[in-house]
Every structure is written in structure tokens, then in C-alpha cells.
């Protein structure tokens, strides 16, 4: 984990609708730190007084060079923090704290087919994983959903990486792929292919993750989910990012930290 100042290489804004806008931010770091699938960094424009807190952003992609590291993020422009990020221009400085959090369990994926399930900007947390799975020759398919086609973040990159036949899309407005929730094509797929062993990796809105967890347990499939939670620090000192995890105590659960115990959890260990 390092606390440093990174330089903006690119910051490209796009919009699905006026209401839903996104940014792609590429940062250059002198330090060639490890970047694992599922990990994240805390970001904030350097020297900007408001908002105070950095924002957690999952690594989308990264490139290693002889003298530097280049990391890319995809963010949805929601509130004050991401609005501040959206104003960054090439050459600007960014407060960077990373790499943070745990990583997906790739050992558990061996000799299985990996199904990646992404909702909205959640796909940002799955691309590095998809790359890693490919490298290990673990068969991987992506189920990606969003409100509209413009909300399927990184779709082209995933298709290029996995091949279009391995990417299943769903949009609420039917503007791309099936109409409806991404969990529908996931279930269809599971109906057809119950034979060989499968593992699920999911990231997206809470509602989607709950449904995925449900499906996984119904089919007795191991599933890892990457969670979000409001974070003040990102490295374990504020205890603001609590998530309820099963435990054998009277109440049946205790709170763990999404930032250091996660953001990746086994769905069955979570007290949904």
C-alpha cells in the first residue's frame, strides 16, 4: 500500500443518458506496485479542498512499463466526489492510495468454468479478473447488465477479450441484448449447463448481488461477490465500511470491513 501522487494521462467522459454519465480515468504512477483483480485505490484530485474524502475506485485495467505503471478506472458520475474526478484534465495530479483490499480467489476457479456477472459500473471490477482467467486458460463468460446499452461499461473490451460468443448482455430498456435483469440470461445458462463445475464472480448493485447469491446457493455453485460500501479511509482505520458476516455468536453475525477483509467475499459467508 502506498500513498502517492499520480498524474492524469486520460480522462474521457461519456454518457448513457443525461442522468447517467461515466468517466474513464487513466493514471500514471512512478511506483510499479502490484495490481490484483478485485483490488481498488482511493482517489481524489490533488489539493482540492472539497469533498474531503477520497473515493474508492476498482482497478479496471493496468499496463506495466519499464519506468512506470498505468492504471485505468471507470467511474459513474454520481455525486460530489465523482464530479470532482470528472473535472480532471490530462497532466493534473491525483492523490492515490493503493493497492487496497483483497483479490478474487483464482485457485478456487481452477478446473471450473468462471461466470462473471456484472451490473452497471460493477463490470469495472471484473476486467482484470477476466484477463487473469484467460491467462490461466480458465474458461470465462461474462453476463453484463445495465439500464441501457450506454451503461454496459467496458463492453467492447470484454467482447474483444472473451469473444462475443462468451458475453451475454441484458438491458432494462432492451436497447442491447436481452431485455430485463442480467440474472435472467445467467439462470438460462445454468439451466442448460448443469454438468461441469462452475464458479461465479459478481460485482454490481446490492439487489443484483443478492439475487446472484440466491441463484448460486440454489444451484450449489460457489460464488464470490465484490461489495461496495461508503468508505472514509479505505485501509482499515475508520471502521465505517462495515458488512455483516455470519458468525456463531448469539446474534449470528459480526461486522467485518469491506476495505481490508474485502471487497471480495464468498457469498455464503455474508449475512445478507
Amino acid at each position, binding site marked *: 500500500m502506498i500513498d502517492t501522487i499520480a498524474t492524469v494521462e486520460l480522462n474521457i467522459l461519456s454518457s448513457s443518458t443525461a442522468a447517467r454519465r461515466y468517466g474513464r480515468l487513466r493514471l500514471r504512477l512512478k511506483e510499479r506496485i502490484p495490481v490484483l483483480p478485485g483490488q481498488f485505490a482511493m482517489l481524489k484530485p490533488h489539493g482540492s479542498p472539497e469533498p474531503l474524502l477520497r473515493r474508492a475506485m476498482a482497478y479496471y485495467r493496468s499496463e506495466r512499463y519499464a519506468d512506470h505503471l498505468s492504471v485505468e478506472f471507470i467511474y459513474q458520475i454520481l455525486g460530489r466526489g465523482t464530479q470532482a474526478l470528472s473535472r480532471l484534465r490530462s497532466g493534473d495530479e491525483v492523490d492515490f492510495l493503493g493497492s487496497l483490499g483483497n483479490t478474487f480467489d483464482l485457485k478456487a476457479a481452477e478446473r471450473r468454468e468462471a461466470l462473471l456477472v456484472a451490473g452497471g459500473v460493477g463490470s469495472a471490477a471484473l476486467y482484470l479478473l477476466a484477463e487473469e482467467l484467460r491467462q490461466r486458460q480458465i474458461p470465462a463468460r461474462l453476463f453484463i447488465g445495465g439500464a441501457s446499452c450506454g451503461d454496459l461499461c467496458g463492453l467492447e473490451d470484454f467482447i474483444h477479450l472473451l469473444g462475443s460468443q462468451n458475453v451475454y448482455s441484458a438491458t432494462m430498456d432492451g436497447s442491447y441484448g436481452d431485455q430485463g435483469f442480467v440474472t435472467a440470461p445467467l439462470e438460462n445458462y445454468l439451466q442448460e449447463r448443469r454438468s461441469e463445475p462452475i464458479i461465479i464472480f459478481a460485482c454490481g448493485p446490492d439487489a443484483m448481488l443478492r439475487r446472484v447469491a440466491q441463484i448460486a446457493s440454489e444451484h450449489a455453485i460457489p460464488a464470490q461477490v465484490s461489495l461496495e*460500501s461508503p468508505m472514509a479511509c479505505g485501509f482499515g482505520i475508520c471502521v465505517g465500511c462495515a458488512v455483516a458476516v455470519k458468525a456463531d455468536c448469539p446474534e449470528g453475525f459480526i461486522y467485518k470491513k469491506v476495505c481490508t477483509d474485502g471487497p471480495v467475499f464468498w457469498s455464503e459467508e455474508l449475512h445478507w
Partner: protein
Amino acid sequence: MTSKREDKTSHDQQTDLLAIEIAGIRFNNPVTTASGTCGYGLEMAELIDLNRLGGIFTKGLSARPMRGNAPWRIVETHGGMLNAIGLQNIGARTFVMEKLPALRQYNTRIIPNVFGYTVEEYLEAIEILEEGEGIDAYELNISCPNVKAGGESFANDAHLAAEVTAAVKRAARRPVIVKLSPNVTDIAEIARAVEASGADALSVINTVVGMAIDIHTRRPRLANVTGGLSGPAIKPIAVRCVFQVARAVQIPVFGIGGIATVEDALEFIIAGASAIQVGTANFYDPRASVKIIDGLAEYCQRHSLENIRELVGTVEV
């Protein structure tokens, strides 16, 4: 850090300029980290050299472990944040057994922050901590506004505040620092009552009770409904409290509230604080405390002070 430090004042020089004594304890410098904003200390070791810190005030500890509040526990506001962690902690015993051994390896003062919902619970926690080696003093959180039960009342009533202070003083062989709440009509009155019952020093201030509502769900943003406001937004309130308390009592005061830069730290020291605690700033600028230490040393040299203590309470009114 080291490289950074070299082009600043050397470590020893800094210590000469910044070392202070409070309640009979020697601090290498007056910059410490505030309770609940630096975990149990060790979590920050990867980002800063803990040996640089004057002291570490641990996350609030109770006799038994506590699970804390349901999420959401934090909300950012303009210039600050609200928190309702609910005092989640591993309990005094686990702290002594699992954290303290590693923590005491560092050359810094270790001050557990202690709380309870009854005087007895405070004493239970203290009793456990008394067994621990390498603890320099205790800070009593009698004012954490995040807990629905008891907690707050101690800080809001001079008699209750005095009672718990006196009880802990009788039980503890180490100095006792009492942390005051700003959510009172007359903080100086509470300060005097706590001093009279034997407190060795005061910490001023804890968070200010606040609330935020999500206009879309019409629900409080915090599961606990209300929470404690911290950060630069409360700095003017904290400076005022430190000023009022420092004039009301003889015992030294730790200044707390929105401190993020050396200028902030100087403002509190001039207002009457013998030392300061860095809180929320640790979250968005983990190296804030170390930057402040370097800044204070430079300040002393620039203004040719022999020691930072010459600046304490020098505000001219």
C-alpha cells in the same frame, strides 16, 4: 518517510524542539493521532513511521468486545463527516494480548481510549488494561455521542463527569486524560469539575452531534439516526472550546477538531493546547500527522523557539 525526513530537520533536532511533558509523561512531540481515527495504531504502520508520532490514542476500548452499529455508519458532509460506528472494538483484553505487544515496540506514547455505559464498566476495562505493559496513560471517552445508551450523559453533567473521573483515578496507576464533549451549554464548567476530581489532562473536543437525511429515501443516512460531526467543519468550534477550557483549568489540554495542517495545529496550540490530536485528516491524508510534525519543527526554527511549548496559550485577547 526517511528520505523525506532528511531534507527536513533531523530527527534529534526535532525532538529537542518538540518534546513536551504532559501529566508526567514525555511525548517526543505534541502531535498524536485521535481515538477512532487510527485503529489500534498498527494499521497505519505501512503508511507512516509510528516512531515519528508523539502518541497514539487507540480506538475506544470497552471491557468486553462490541460489534458496533449497523451500516451506514458514515456520511460525508461539507467540510466534514458524520460517523456512528457504535464503538465497535475488540475489547480491552484482546487489545492487551494481541495488539499491545507489537504496538509497544514503537518509540511513541500509547494511550488506550476507554469507555463504558456505567462507572463499573469503565473500571472493568481499566482493570484489564492495568495488566498491560507499555501503556502510558488512559483517555476516558465520556462523551462519544454515537451511543444511544448512557455514554453521552457523563459528559453532559458536571456531577456524572466528576464521578467517573474520580472512580477511574482511584483505580488507575497511570495518568487519566478525560475527553470532553462540545455538546454542552458550558464546557468550562465540566472541565473544572473533571479537574477537581483529579483528571491529569483533558482532550477537547469529541465530535458534535449531527444528522443527515437522504431526501430520496427520507431515511436518516446513518442507521443510528444521529452521528458525530468531525473534520475541518468543526475546527472553529473546537478552537473556541480549547480556548475556553484552557483558561478554566490548570491541567494541560489536548486540542482536537479538524486539524489537518501545521497551520491548524499552531492555531490550537496558540489557543491553549499543549498537544494536539489528528483525527479525520488521517482518513483522507494519512501522512498529515507526520507533515504537521515536520511543519512544527520548521516553525520553531524559523521563529527561533527553543521548544514548541513556548507557544502554548500565547493568544492575545
